């Protein structure tokens, strides 16, 4: 017997019936790559889950599994959630891409939403992501103003388009306000590894970096900066994924917050209404998915005003962070004067812009 016939049998017996009957709550599952207490990426997805619970009350039931590795175990975790009757499953990390699509093939009546991926092989798979580069434009601007050594550090996770967009956007905007800027990029090859992230931060501080941006999820770089400041240093950081408010007012001077609540509520509503359809969503500041956390008083008032003006312009759709003229690292033209980057080009971004040093490890 194949899995499909077994499933059909199970469904006929009412064992794995997706709870679509009116009185049954809609069951929404979440697969997390880190622990919900990571204070970053997974924490924010879990906040989104809690927002769904609060918004819909008894009409939904949520389940989650944390710290699911992005290898062979992911498919089992997703399958088991579908078996337990989930109607909608959010798989919240890039590495779940093939597993999500494989499980979706076996459960055509369950809806799947995969974060940050690009494969939608079945009609019941959607993808979603947020335009973090919009937030990076703001933090890059603040960083360019704050640095005295003209050295900005960037702890990068993996050389994928999303991360490269962030590096380019921060550098571009730091350079706009401070043409002498130099950016030191360190590849950590992890999304969450406090020890590695702390090492990267300390090494950068030793090299004279005085502003650190991060695309990894732990608060370890913040702690490393705090430690340096206690020993007479002057280092600033930005919260990543979540607010990381415990490091206010310094070293953390602002943050990029991923707010998944609006998207999660919208998609759960679509399942309840029976209007859910496959899509590729890429929201940003206008949709409220990318939010800049409190800019502290450690940032001079005029810099803060400049940052807030940029937030307002991006939110209103008046400013796109990748607006030409922008050249590639090798000097060739990418965007002409006034030209705005297309989504397709951003989603496949695999090059640095002019002025960045070093190579993308490819």
């Amino acid at each position, binding site marked *: *017997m*194949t*899995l499909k016939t*077994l499933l059909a049998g199970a469904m006929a017996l009412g*064992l794995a019936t997706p709870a679509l009957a009116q009185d049954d709550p809609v069951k929404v*599952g979440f697969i997390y790559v880190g*622990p*919900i207490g990571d204070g970053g990426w997974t924490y924010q997805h879990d906040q989104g889950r809690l927002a769904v619970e609060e918004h819909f009350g008894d009409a939904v039931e949520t*389940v*989650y*599994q*944390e*710290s*699911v*590795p*992005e*290898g*062979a*175990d992911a*498919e*089992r*975790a997703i*399958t*088991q*959630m579908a*078996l*337990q009757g989930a109607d909608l499953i959010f798989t919240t990390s*890039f*590495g779940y891409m*093939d597993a999500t699509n494989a499980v979706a093939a076996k459960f055509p009546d369950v809806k799947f939403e995969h974060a940050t991926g*690009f494969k939608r092989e079945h009609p019941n798979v959607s993808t979603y992501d947020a335009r973090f580069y919009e937030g990076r434009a703001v933090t890059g601007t603040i960083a360019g103003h704050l640095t005295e050594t003209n050295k900005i550090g960037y702890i990068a996770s*993996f*050389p*994928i*388009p999303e991360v*490269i967009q962030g590096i380019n956007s921060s550098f571009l905007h730091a350079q706009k306000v401070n043409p002498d800027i130099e950016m030191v990029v360190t590849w950590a*090859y992890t999304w969450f590894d406090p020890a590695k992230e702390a090492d990267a931060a300390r090494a950068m501080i030793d090299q004279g970096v005085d502003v650190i941006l991060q695309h990894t999820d732990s608060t370890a770089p913040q702690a490393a900066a705090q430690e340096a400041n206690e020993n007479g240093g002057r280092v600033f950081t930005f919260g990543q994924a979540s607010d990381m408010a415990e490091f206010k007012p310094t070293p953390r001077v602002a943050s990029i917050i991923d707010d998944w609540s609006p998207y999660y509520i919208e998609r759960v509503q679509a399942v309840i209404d029976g209007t859910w359809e496959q899509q590729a969503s890429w929201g940003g500041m206008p949709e409220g998915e990318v939010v800049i956390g409190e800019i502290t008083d450690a940032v001079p008032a005029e810099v803060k005003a400049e940052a807030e003006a940029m937030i307002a312009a991006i939110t209103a759709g008046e400013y796109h962070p990748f607006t030409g003229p922008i050249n590639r690292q090798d000097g060739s033209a990418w965007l002409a004067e006034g030209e705005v980057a297309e989504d397709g080009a951003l*989603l*496949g*971004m*695999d090059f640095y812009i002019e002025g960045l040093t070093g190579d993308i*490890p*490819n």
Partner: protein
Amino acid sequence: MIHLERRPTPSRAWGAASPLLAVALTMVAGGLMFAALGKDPLEALRTIFWDPVLGEFAWYFRGQILVKAGPLILIAVGLALGFRAGVWNIGAEGQYIVGAICGAAAGLVFYPTDSVRIFPFMVVFGAFGGIAWAMIPALLKVRLGTNEILVSLMLVYVAENLLASAAVNWLRNPDAVGFPGSRNLARWDASANLELIEGTGIHWGVVAALIAVIFAHVMLTRHLMGFQVRLAGASPRAARFGGVNTGRLIVLCLGFSGMLAGMAGLFEVTGPAGQISIDFASGYGFTAIIVAFLGRLNPLGIVAAGLLMALTYVGGEAASANLGLPSAAISAFQGMLLFFLLAVDVLTNFRVRVGKGVAA
């Protein structure tokens, strides 16, 4: 006063009973922990131990237990042989990774042609990768007298960096618009290591584990090589006087365990994992060390230990998802099981005496 008295010979009765006692103690202590976390302890224990084997969706989870146990058993059997001879290969994780990389690379050379010869070719290269990685500590030990524990362990970190570079660079899927990870080998007919009988979870890796268990069991009990392994472990000096070539034994033990670990990596990358990715290494090589000792370094015991370990993983995941238990609580629960298994083991070798004993 309570004191321990060494038994003249290990107790057979306790040897058999201690794993059961350990599981019982784990259930009590784990149940208390689950209760302290505000969950129904009986429901949690049922979800971990009962549901995957006999519950509503057991038809799916039983197969998954085999998928999880396969690589653990395959690696542990090889390690146990070395451990019995006093050869400490702690770096099976590295051999597992290098085996997967070598095998995957050997196969991807032929992409996208289709031939039934590609998969066996990949298995051979997977085994070869594992052997090659294990030969480094083996030859260094034989020639220069270095410590194989340190060398094999350090090589795990080297292997992890090789894996990262393979995933983002030289084995990266060229069609993946800049994302890391190789092509999905489980979706390419020539390399896919799928279930041999659908719904059972049995893939080539599980079959290989079974063969390795039988082979190791026969060798240890019936073959001169097995006798040499046991002799070298029990008394290295006696072994040398008895004409055992220690250097050859070290190379053979490390090579054999490296080969099995490399094959486990290949079966995993072509099947359950599907691709070389940065997170491909899932710790099987380290967990297998625990499995080897849980199984008393005995091939048949390792089968039981591997299945038990796999059950706690699969059931633990289910408990974490269905009951909202934190993943750390599941890890703690597994830790308890190992702790009690080792602690109760004391009873096999020692007698507990109450009262005034002879001064030790």
